[in-house]
């Protein structure tokens, strides 16, 4: 079974530039998550989708971050404009559904460096 795919794997930009990340979840998984992982810390949930609807975006900095999952499959996460503190690994995960027992499978992440 193919895992969660993410691209690009690495991105270097200057502050105030824009950047977008792409995620393709495991086929059939209804739930998709974007996490931010700052170096040396645990992942922090940014946004959770159930199919193409947003379930939780309480920790998404909405003034600069946006995410969409238009057809309930692939998703993109955008940062516009980027700040130095956005340097982190952005992880996408997917699960069959929500709730206990629905294991989240993580992609390899996109490492963003903002200069």
């Amino acid at each position, binding site marked *: 079974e193919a895992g969660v795919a993410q691209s690009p794997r690495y991105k270097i930009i200057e502050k105030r530039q824009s950047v977008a990340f792409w995620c393709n979840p495991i086929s059939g998984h209804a739930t998709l998550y974007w996490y931010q992982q700052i*170096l*040396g810390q645990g992942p922090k949930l940014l946004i*959770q989708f159930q199919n193409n609807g947003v379930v939780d975006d309480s920790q998404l900095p909405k003034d600069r971050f946006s995410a969409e999952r238009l057809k309930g499959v692939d998703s993109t996460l955008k940062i516009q404009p980027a700040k130095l503190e956005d340097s982190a690994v952005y*992880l996408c995960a997917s699960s069959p559904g929500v*709730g*206990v027992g*629905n294991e*989240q499978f993580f992609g390899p*992440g996109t490492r963003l460096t903002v200069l």
Partner: protein
Amino acid sequence: GESVGLHLPTLSVQEGDNSIINCAYSNSASDYFIWYKQESGKGPQFIIDIRSNMDKRQGQRVTVLLNKTVKHLSLQIAATQPGDSAVYFCAETAGTASKLTFGTGTRLQVTL
């Protein structure tokens, strides 16, 4: 800040020994806990989970212990192998939501 994040707690064990990684959680409403392993350049990988109605669960070479009284979780790895070298995170969630809150992680180094 970033300087705090860089100083991950590190556990160094010899190959073949048992490892115990600890995690404290703060939300008394958390009722489901998961241990993840994260190797360099990869996303977290599920190891084992436990629900709050249990205090122990065993898998292959791994055991998770839950002490709800002191809000403490531990992961025991038997006969630690070089391939176990990674950062280990505990994560918790409350209720039926899937929102996971991750701890800061512990780096496990296996020496030969």
